[in-house]
C-alpha cells in the first residue's frame, strides 16, 4: 500500500567519484547518529509518559525534516491534549497557534505530506478561537504555488465546511482559477461538485417521490446554468483545444443521469416452463422471488419458474430510442445542435484534434444516431489514426454505437433476427435488448470472444459467427435452444487455453458413452497423455 512517497520521486541519479562517495558516506553517518539520537529521545519521553514542552521541541526537530513519521504527530497530539488539561484557554490558543506556525513551515518544505495536512485539520478544529479566514488564505497561497495539490484542495473543502463558506463563493473561486488558467483539472472537478448543489436540475415529474440517488455523480444541473457552463467550457477549448480538462468536463455536462433501472424485456415460454427477464441494470434479486440461476455481470436474471407479475409487461421497440439516447443529454435539440455547430467550427480549424472529434461523435449520437451514422464512422477512422494508442477504445465505442444503430433499425416483426456482419465489431454489448432473438449473425467482425452475457440470448437457435477471432466458447453455455453454430475461420485453440493439460479424467460422465470420444478429445487436446474415460 502507498502512503506518501514523495521522497521516492524525481530523484535524479548522478554519477559521483569515489572520493565524493567517501565524503558523502561520512556525512550520512554523521546525520544518521543525530537522527537516531533524536528519535530515541522522543521514544524515551513517550515511554516514560513525559508530555512536556521539551518533548514538543524534540518531535518538532524530526518532523520538520521527516513529516511522514506519523507516530511523532501522534505523540504531539497526546502532548497537546495533555496540555489542554493543565493550561487555560488563552495559553492553549497560543500553543495551538505556534503549532499552526510550525505546520506552515513543514508544508512549505513538503506540501504533499498527508501527516502535516491531517495534523493541521486536527489543530484547527481544536483551536479555542479558530481563524478560518486565515486557513482559507493559506489554501489560496498554497494553490497559487501548485493549483493541483489535492491535499490542499481537500483541506480547503474541510475549511469551507467547518466555517460555512457559501457554495456561491466557492464557485466564484473556481471562476477565478479557471479564468487565470483553463488547464486546471482540479478546478473543473470542484465545479462538478458545486454546480449540482447550487443549480439542481428541476425535479423530474416522473421520478418525484423516488428516493434521491445515493450517487453524487448522477446529480444534474438545471438547464439555464448548463447553457452558461457550455459557454465557459467552449471558451476553454477554443483557447487551448488540446487541454483535456475542459473536454472531460464538457462530456460530463453533456451527459445525463444513469440509465434508469427498468425491465427491458420479458419472455415467457410455456413449453419450456421458463420465464426470462432482462433488466437494464444489475438488480438485487429479491429473496421472495424464487430464482434458480442468476447470471452475474450480465444485467439479467433468468427465472426458471413462472411468476405472476409478468402479465402486464410487453416488449416494445420504442424503449430502445430512449435507452440509447440516454448517454447524452436530454436537453433541447436546438441546444445540442448549436453545440455541434461550435464543435464543427473548431474541427475545421483543428481537423486532427481528437477531443473535438470524439465530442462531435457524441453530439451526433445524441441528436440522431442513424442520420449521422456515416459521418460518425468516418470520424472514428480519423480518431484511430490520430490517436493510435487508444484505437482499441475507439473500436469498442464504435462497436457499441453500431450495435445500438442496428437495434434501432430493427422492425418490430424482425425482432427475432439480428444481423450485424462486417462492421468491425470488437465487442458485444446491449445483449439485454436481444433476449427474443432466435437467429444472430455476427460474421466477419473482429470479435475475440463471446462474453458471458451471451447467456441472455435465451431464445437463440442459430449463431453465425464465421470469420472472427473467437478464441473459446465460454459464452455458449446456458443456451438451451441453440441448434446451429457456425464458427468457420476463427481462433479456436483449445491448446491455447490449456497448453499444459496432460491428465484428463472424465470417468462417470455421459459424454464418455458416445462413439469415438477418445479420438475426438485427443484431436482437440493433443497435449493430453493420460486420458481416463
Amino acid at each position, binding site marked *: *500500500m*502507498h*502512503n506518501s*512517497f514523495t*521522497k*521516492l*520521486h*524525481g*530523484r*535524479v*541519479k548522478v554519477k559521483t567519484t569515489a572520493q565524493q562517495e567517501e565524503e558523502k558516506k561520512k556525512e*550520512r*553517518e554523521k*546525520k*544518521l547518529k543525530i*537522527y537516531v539520537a533524536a528519535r530515541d529521545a522522543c521514544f524515551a519521553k513517550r515511554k516514560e509518559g513525559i508530555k512536556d514542552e521539551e518533548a514538543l521541541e524534540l518531535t518538532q526537530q524530526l518532523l520538520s525534516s*521527516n513529516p*511522514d*513519521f*506519523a*507516530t511523532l*504527530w*501522534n505523540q504531539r*497530539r497526546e502532548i497537546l491534549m495533555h496540555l489542554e488539561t493543565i493550561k487555560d484557554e488563552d495559553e492553549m490558543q497560543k500553543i495551538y497557534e505556534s503549532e499552526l506556525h510550525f505546520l506552515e513551515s513543514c508544508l512549505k518544505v513538503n506540501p504533499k505530506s*498527508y501527516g502535516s495536512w*491531517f495534523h493541521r485539520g*486536527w489543530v484547527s478544529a481544536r483551536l479555542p478561537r479558530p481563524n478560518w479566514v486565515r486557513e482559507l488564505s493559506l489554501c489560496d497561497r498554497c494553490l497559487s504555488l501548485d493549483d*493541483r495539490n*489535492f491535499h490542499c*484542495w*481537500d483541506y480547503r*473543502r474541510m475549511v469551507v465546511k467547518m466555517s460555512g463558506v457559501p457554495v456561491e463563493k466557492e464557485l466564484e473561486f473556481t471562476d477565478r482559477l479557471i479564468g487565470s488558467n483553463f*488547464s486546471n*483539472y*482540479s478546478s473543473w*472537478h470542484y465545479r*462538478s*461538485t458545486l454546480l449540482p448543489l447550487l443549480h439542481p436540475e428541476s425535479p423530474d415529474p416522473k421520478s418525484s417521490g423516488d428516493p434521491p440517488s*445515493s*450517487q*453524487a*455523480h448522477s446529480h444534474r444541473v438545471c438547464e439555464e446554468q448548463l447553457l452558461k457552463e457550455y459557454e465557459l467550457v467552449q471558451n476553454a477549448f477554443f483557447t487551448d483545444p488540446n487541454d*483535456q*480538462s475542459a473536454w*472531460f*468536463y464538457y462530456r*460530463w455536462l453533456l451527459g445525463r443521469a*444513469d440509465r434508469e433501472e427498468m425491465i427491458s424485456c420479458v419472455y415467457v415460454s410455456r413449453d419450456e416452463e421458463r420465464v426470462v427477464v432482462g433488466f437494464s*441494470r*444489475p438488480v438485487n434479486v429479491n429473496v421472495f422471488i424464487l430464482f434458480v440461476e442468476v447470471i452475474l*455481470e450480465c444485467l439479467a436474471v433468468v427465472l426458471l419458474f413462472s411468476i405472476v407479475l409478468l402479465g402486464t409487461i410487453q416488449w416494445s421497440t420504442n424503449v430502445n430510442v430512449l435507452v440509447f439516447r440516454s448517454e447524452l443529454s436530454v436537453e433541447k435539440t436546438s441546444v445540442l445542435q448549436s453545440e455541434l455547430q461550435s464543435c464543427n467550427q473548431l474541427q475545421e480549424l483543428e481537423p486532427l484534434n481528437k477531443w473535438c472529434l470524439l465530442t462531435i461523435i457524441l453530439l451526433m449520437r445524441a441528436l440522431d444516431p442513424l442520420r449521422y451514422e456515416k459521418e460518425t464512422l468516418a470520424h472514428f477512422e480519423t480518431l484511430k489514426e490520430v490517436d*493510435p*494508442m*487508444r484505437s*482499441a*477504445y475507439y473500436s469498442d*465505442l464504435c462497436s*457499441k454505437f453500431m450495435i445500438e444503430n442496428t437495434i434501432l433499425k430493427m422492425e418490430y416483426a424482425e425482432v427475432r433476427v439480428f444481423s450485424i456482419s462486417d462492421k468491425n465489431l470488437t465487442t458485444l454489448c446491449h445483449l439485454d435488448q436481444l433476449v427474443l432473438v432466435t437467429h444472430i449473425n455476427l460474421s466477419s467482425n473482429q470479435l475475440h470472444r463471446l*462474453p*458471458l452475457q451471451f447467456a441472455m440470448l435465451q431464445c437463440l437457435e442459430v449463431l453465425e459467427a464465421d470469420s472472427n477471432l473467437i478464441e473459446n466458447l465460454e459464452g455458449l453455455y446456458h443456451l438451451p435452444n441453440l441448434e446451429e453454430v457456425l464458427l468457420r475461420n476463427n481462433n479456436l485453440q483449445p491448446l491455447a487455453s490449456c497448453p499444459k493439460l496432460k491428465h484428463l479424467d472424465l470417468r462417470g460422465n455421459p459424454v464418455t458413452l458416445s462413439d469415438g470420444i477418445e479420438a475426438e478429445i485427443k484431436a482437440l487436446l493433443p497435449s493430453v497423455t493420460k486420458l481416463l474415460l
Partner: protein
Amino acid sequence: MLDKHADYIAVYGSKKDDYEYTLSEYLRMSGIYWGLTVMDLMGQLHRMNRNEIVEFIKSCQHESGGISASIGHDPHLLYTLSAVQILCLYDCMDALDVDRVVEYVKGLQQEDGSFAGDKWGEIDTRFSFCAVATLALLGKMDAINVDKAIEFVLSCMNFDGGFGCRPGSESHAGQIYCCTGFLSLTGQLHQVNADLLGWWLCERQLPSGGLNGRPEKLPDVCYSWWVLASLKIIGKIHWIDKGKLRAFILACQDEETGGFADRPGDMVDPFHTLFGVAGLSLLGDEQVKAVNPVLCMPEDVLQRRGLQPDVLS
C-alpha cells in the same frame, strides 16, 4: 536483468545502518511487503530471511490488534494490511493473533461506513481498501458492515467515473485502484461506470508509453501499475498500448544496480521495483509469476488461500 533486480532487493534489506533506510522506518512494514512480493514474483522469495521477518511482524502487533510499521511506532491500517500480506506470502498467518487483527479493523469503521487509518481518525478510501483487503485475506469480511462500507466508497465517485480520498475529492489513479479493488473484493464492480472510467484511465497513457496518475501529470512506474491494475479490474486493459507501456517500464530499470525508478534516469527504490515488475506481469511477461491486480500479490499465493477477487471481463 531479473537476477540483478533480485540482488538489489536482497542487498537493500541488509543495509540496516544506512541513513536513508533508517529514515524510511516509518513505513518499514510496507517496505518489506514490496520487497518480498517482488522477490516472490521473480521466484526468489527464499533469499529473504523468513524467520527474522516473521519475528519482526510478531513484535509489531499491538495490544489493540493493529500492526505498526516498525517497533516503537503506532499501529495503522496501512501496515496491518502489509503484515497480513507478508504472512500470506509465507503462509504462516498463525504468527499473528488474527482475532485481534479483525477486532482492530472492525473498530476503525465509522458511522458512515468509512474507515479511519488509525485511532486518530484520518478518513480515506485507501483505508477502506486496506480494511476489506485485510479481512478478505483473513476470510473475515463479515466482521464489518460491508453495505455501509460500500455506500461510503460509492459516495466518493466523481463526474469522470473515478474516485478520490473522500466525498468531493478529485479522482486520482491510486485512489481509483483502491476503490475498484474495494468494489472487487465486495462483489460490487457492476456499480462502476466501466466505459467512462476506462476512458479516463486509458487517457493516462502519454506518448512515452508511461501512465500518469491524473491529467497533466508526469508518467511514473507506480502510477502505471495503479492505472493498469484498475483497467484490468474493470475489464479494459486492452484500451492502452501494452507494447509502449512495457517499453517505458523497461526504460526505468537501472541496468547497473538493478531495481526500477519512477522514471528513466532517476534513482531506483523497492517501491517502484515492485510496481515495475508487477506491471510487466500484468502485461503478460512470462518470466515472472502472474500477479493479482486487486491485491498486488502472486496469484498462486491467493489460490492457496482460496481467494479469487472478481474482475470484469
